[in-house]
């Protein structure tokens, strides 16, 4: 099993010790955090010196982000760096296939279409729980929800992902030169059916993402009044704070870092994943924002 370490800034390079044979560098969630050319140069020099494999992680992007990424791709091309590009935007995949065919595109975890809502883990335990609450509009009205069991034959949906279970889609991805798919170590477990000879798999550990947005809830969190607008100024508060979110319906503490919600799943069934065809673990020492 290949061990990769995922870092988002050069100050984390110390994590790339002898335990790992590959470095992931970049950001999946925010185009404002796309590394600069100098940062990328530092990291490529580092991996070259230590003979480590390299993957550049890219986020979903607008035109602005796309321009930044093109700069990074050009630099990698100039320096002759053989690497993977972790793609989290169909536009980036299109760009690579059209203009940078020497890079190896990898389908990032945002593109995998995996069910991983944190409450699904509890629902899939099928305990048939019931709970009561007052109607939000009229507190005098009491409402009871009785949980019906999710049909067992839908497990491949709730524990799966289309790219991980539908052969025709895998063939389509192969035509797009994608031969590796990445996914999260979902709390409810993972079911997949991927031909090992055609497609390779990576799992992210221990943090999985739940949701993300351009409307960054952290940007401007120091401002008064606080706002939830996309246009508020970003002072990279995501690099200063993290928020722990608790809610009675959530089985675990959630983390809000920057514009993205995460869960933590410390359980990693290595043997099971290996049997399913996973050949790479992407370790995140910190939440990857």
């Amino acid at each position, binding site marked *: 099993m290949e061990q990769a370490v995922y870092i988002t800034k050069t100050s984390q390079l110390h994590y790339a010790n002898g335990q790992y044979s590959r470095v992931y560098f970049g950001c999946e969630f925010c185009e404002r955090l796309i590394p600069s050319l100098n940062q990328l140069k530092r990291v490529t020099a580092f991996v070259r010196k230590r003979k480590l494999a390299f993957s550049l992680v890219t986020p979903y992007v607008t035109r602005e982000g796309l321009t930044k990424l093109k700069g990074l791709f050009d630099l990698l091309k100039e320096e002759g760096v053989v690497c993977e590009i972790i793609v989290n935007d*169909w*536009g980036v995949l299109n760009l690579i296939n059209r203009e940078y065919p020497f890079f190896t595109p990898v389908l990032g975890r945002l593109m995998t279409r*995996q069910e991983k809502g944190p409450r699904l883990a509890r629902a899939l335990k099928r305990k048939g729980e019931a709970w009561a609450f007052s109607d939000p509009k009229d507190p005098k009205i*009491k409402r009871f929800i009785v949980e019906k069991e*999710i049909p067992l034959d839908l497990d491949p949906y709730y524990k799966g992902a289309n790219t991980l279970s539908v052969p025709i889609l895998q063939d389509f991805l192969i035509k797009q030169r994608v031969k590796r798919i990445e996914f999260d170590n979902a709390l409810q477990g993972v079911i997949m059916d991927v031909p090992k000879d055609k497609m390779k798999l990576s799992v992210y550990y221990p943090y999985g993402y739940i949701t993300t947005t351009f*409307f960054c*809830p952290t940007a401007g969190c120091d401002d008064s009044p606080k706002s939830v607008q996309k246009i508020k100024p970003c002072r990279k508060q995501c690099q200063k704070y993290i*928020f722990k979110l608790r809610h*009675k319906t959530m089985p675990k503490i959630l983390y809000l870092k920057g514009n993205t919600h995460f869960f933590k799943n410390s359980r990693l069934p290595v043997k099971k994943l290996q049997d399913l065809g996973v050949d790479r673990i992407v370790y995140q020492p910190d939440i990857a924002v």
Partner: protein
Amino acid sequence: MKIKAPLTHQNEVQFLCDAGADEFFCGIEPGAWRTQYENFCINQRVGSANFSKLGDLEKAIRIAHQNKAKVHVTVNAFFYLEKQYSAAKNIIRDALGAGADGIIIADFGLLSLMDKNLLKGKDVVAGCDTAVFNHQSTAFYKKFDVTRIVFPRAMTIGEMEDVIKQDGSLEYEAFILHDLCFFVDAFCAYCKESSAGIKQEGKEKKGVSFFAAARVPARGFGGGCRSRFSRQRVYLRGKKKSTPGKAFTFWGSKAALGCGACAIYDLNRIGVTCLKVLDRNLPTEEKVKATAFIKKCLDFLNGHTSKQHFISRCQALFKKTFKVRCDRYGCYYPSVFRSGER
């Protein structure tokens, strides 16, 4: 610019056409699908927001066509299981056979599996779940003969303009009213975990009613991104922690209505072709009210008005129509209020 309205019943069509709808979007979940895949929606709305009989859909389409309005059928589940793909394809075939003018798709998998001959001459709409944020993505989806792109909610007008400028051969659709969400639909696992909703069992008795949930509680009943979280700030340097603060939500004190009417001026300027009024779950009168509101706002454009004047008129009409003042939490395109912002 056209107005696209939500549709769930054939009786609504005429009212919505009269209110100004030029297009409709609807879903169909036939009995066979419901029986086979109980509590698994073929699109992102629960059963009651969909047509259940093809005949009803056909009638609705007929009335719409009489009013020169188009009907798009949405088959936009997050993704399908392998066996469901063929069932979804059959439903698309039947809906198009019944006269539907196009389909709305969210999953690239379904798009890549579609028979191109079947979609010839039809509108193929890449829904907001296809996550098109840049012109390279439009180029990607054009390979599937997509004719229209729906911009994700999280995009600004400037970002939309960048996409449209690069490729004017496609139609573009933007959200305009209701159902504002701050997260990117295509990347959000919260709403995907509750799409089956909850179903009332029996009638309410003495203020007590029972619901059955096959999955987790739908939004509005706690949980998901609309939860009121207890939030604790942790400083990354020194790991200092604040005490858990008061309840925090992304949605302000109440769920945002979601309105982008003030941006119609700019959306028209950049070349957006269609404005989408949302929420198939709304009662007919709310859908009609919303559609008529957007139609009136569009009419304001015709008088060669200035942007500022247009915004003032829209805000006044909003307050008159919905009996609330527009607020920053419910604004789809807040950049229109800031000079220099895109």
